[in-house]
């Protein structure tokens, strides 16, 4: 009789322990680092980006007559759309773009190391899409702006053309009235010696306004400055490099549906080898290509891994999803991030983290009330996942990929 309270307490503790462990088991999100707002990775660091509330404030502050935003009198930028560093101090600069004459201004954000090394990326407040990638050309960064490539010199706050004007008789000054991409979707090889890009400037001399018909793939040698045509056609993304081979994701139509194919392009010979066709999405982390496919009924999807070196293909076991929405990775990572839909008719989505060598998966389960806003890599072993739950207030989970393995 005197032992009963003790037994009761032990029973309660066991029940509480079981309940706690079961709760943590079904909520792996709760163990993750969580921050308010939208946070993304840039140059291995964390940066806050405008939240939905910030965008809402920005729209409501627009002048109803002119449509112009109200700007900070000091910076001249809309306050609501300014990026902020999370774990490093972020600076912002305005760069003048020249092409013989002044053609525009772009805003760039950058981190600066103690040794003066700068990591540069596009600010959120640019009204036109701007892409920036690091290059081995001194401290300069490569920028795509208005369909052309420029080198940014942050010390001089100036950007100048990266590609030759003119090339092989194509004079860019004549391209103003044409929708010409002088250079787009550029990618620097890991050795830092070559820039691959695609262009439709041939449309100029063909005098043909079907610009898509005249895309070509070119490379620029960063050591000699020489530009060389590699192949006709174009691509959607550069997936990765292996010496003289570039792996490209190309757009294709299969059964009148949009899909991707993966092509290995030999940059010396221009020879192209189709590795995979009819994909919904794909990502590369050398030597693996991870991709999703559908069968001929377009109903059954699968997640597969191709080893480029030996050509072997494997299907990821144990995953039961109706649709895979996207696949992403980053150079040097052993992990691939997949957004998967358990049921086609449900808004719930899971985050699947796949280790490409072991094929082990880790799942962060979603639900109907969790809206995915953004996701991406910070570095090879860290991702951010931004979600909104019910009240549209975003929060970002910072996920260490090595944890929980």
């Amino acid at each position, binding site marked *: 009789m005197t032992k009963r309270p003790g037994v009761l307490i032990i029973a309660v503790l066991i029940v509480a322990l079981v309940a706690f462990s079961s709760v943590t088991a079904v909520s792996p999100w709760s163990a993750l680092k969580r921050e308010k707002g939208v946070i993304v990775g840039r140059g291995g660091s964390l940066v806050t980006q405008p939240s939905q509330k910030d965008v809402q404030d920005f729209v409501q502050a627009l002048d109803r007559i002119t449509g112009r935003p109200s700007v900070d009198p000091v910076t001249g930028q809309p306050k609501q759309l300014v990026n902020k560093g999370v774990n490093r101090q972020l600076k912002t600069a305005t760069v003048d773009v020249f092409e013989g004459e002044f053609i525009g201004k772009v805003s760039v954000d950058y981190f600066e190391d103690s040794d003066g090394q700068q990591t540069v990326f596009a600010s959120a407040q640019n009204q*036109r899409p701007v892409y920036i990638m690091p290059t081995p050309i001194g401290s300069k960064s490569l920028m795509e702006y208005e369909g052309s490539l420029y080198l940014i010199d942050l010390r001089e706050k100036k950007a100048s053309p990266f590609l030759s004007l003119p090339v092989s008789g194509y004079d860019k000054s004549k391209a103003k009235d044409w929708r010409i991409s002088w250079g787009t979707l550029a990618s620097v090889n890991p050795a830092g010696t070559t820039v691959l890009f695609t262009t439709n400037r041939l449309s100029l001399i063909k005098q043909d306004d079907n610009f898509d018909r005249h895309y070509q793939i070119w490379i620029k040698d960063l050591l000699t400055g020489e530009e060389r045509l590699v192949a006709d056609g*174009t691509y959607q993304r550069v997936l990765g490099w292996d010496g003289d081979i570039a792996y490209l994701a190309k757009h294709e139509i299969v059964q009148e549906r949009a899909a991707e194919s993966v092509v290995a392009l030999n940059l010396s010979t221009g020879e192209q080898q189709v590795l995979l066709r009819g994909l919904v999405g794909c990502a590369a982390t050398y030597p693996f290509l991870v991709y999703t496919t559908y069968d001929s009924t377009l109903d059954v999807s699968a997640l597969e891994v191709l080893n480029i070196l030996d050509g072997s293909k494997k299907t990821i076991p144990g995953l039961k999803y109706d649709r895979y929405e996207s696949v992403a990775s980053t150079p040097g990572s052993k992990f691939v991030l997949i957004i998967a839909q358990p049921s086609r*008719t449900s808004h719930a989505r899971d985050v699947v983290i796949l280790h490409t060598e072991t094929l082990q998966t880790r799942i962060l389960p979603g639900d109907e009330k969790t809206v995915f806003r953004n996701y991406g890599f910070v570095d090879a072993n860290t991702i951010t996942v931004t979600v909104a739950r019910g009240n549209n207030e975003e929060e970002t989970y910072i996920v260490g990929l090595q944890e929980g393995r």
Partner: protein
Amino acid sequence: MSKRLTGILLILVLLVCSAQTVLAYGYNWWFNEVHGDLYLTQSRSPFRNAGGTDFYGNVTSNNNQPRTTGTTVHSGTDLGNGGQIYRNVYSVFDGGVVQAIVHSGENTYVTVSYSNGAPLVKYQHITPSQGLSVGNAVGATSVIGTLRDYTWGTLALCCTK
């Protein structure tokens, strides 16, 4: 006297009116039609860059504009994707696919309904994505299709209640 004056004024008014030609708005007019900020501020852009960040394309042809040929006005809003070759088109809200029309002509499209009360949105001139079909729940991170080649990077959005 007053009857004569009224008659003269009436004739003058009729003369002035008859001299007017009813013209449609030209392309240099901006149609600033805003039907509430609620959906505007909640929505994502249908265009994202390769890193998944939204960017906002220019309006290349407004809704209710006259066309250069024919008599019907433009019943949608055309958005340019900034001349980019990256042509994925995303759903602007969480919603469900109610139509995914595919044929070889110009008017291939995906129509999405939204549970937040926003109008139905028809994403026109796009090729629907592989595996996308009627009844699919799509999210604001879902690629629903890609811009068709001949449209030179133009997406037409048509909204209806």
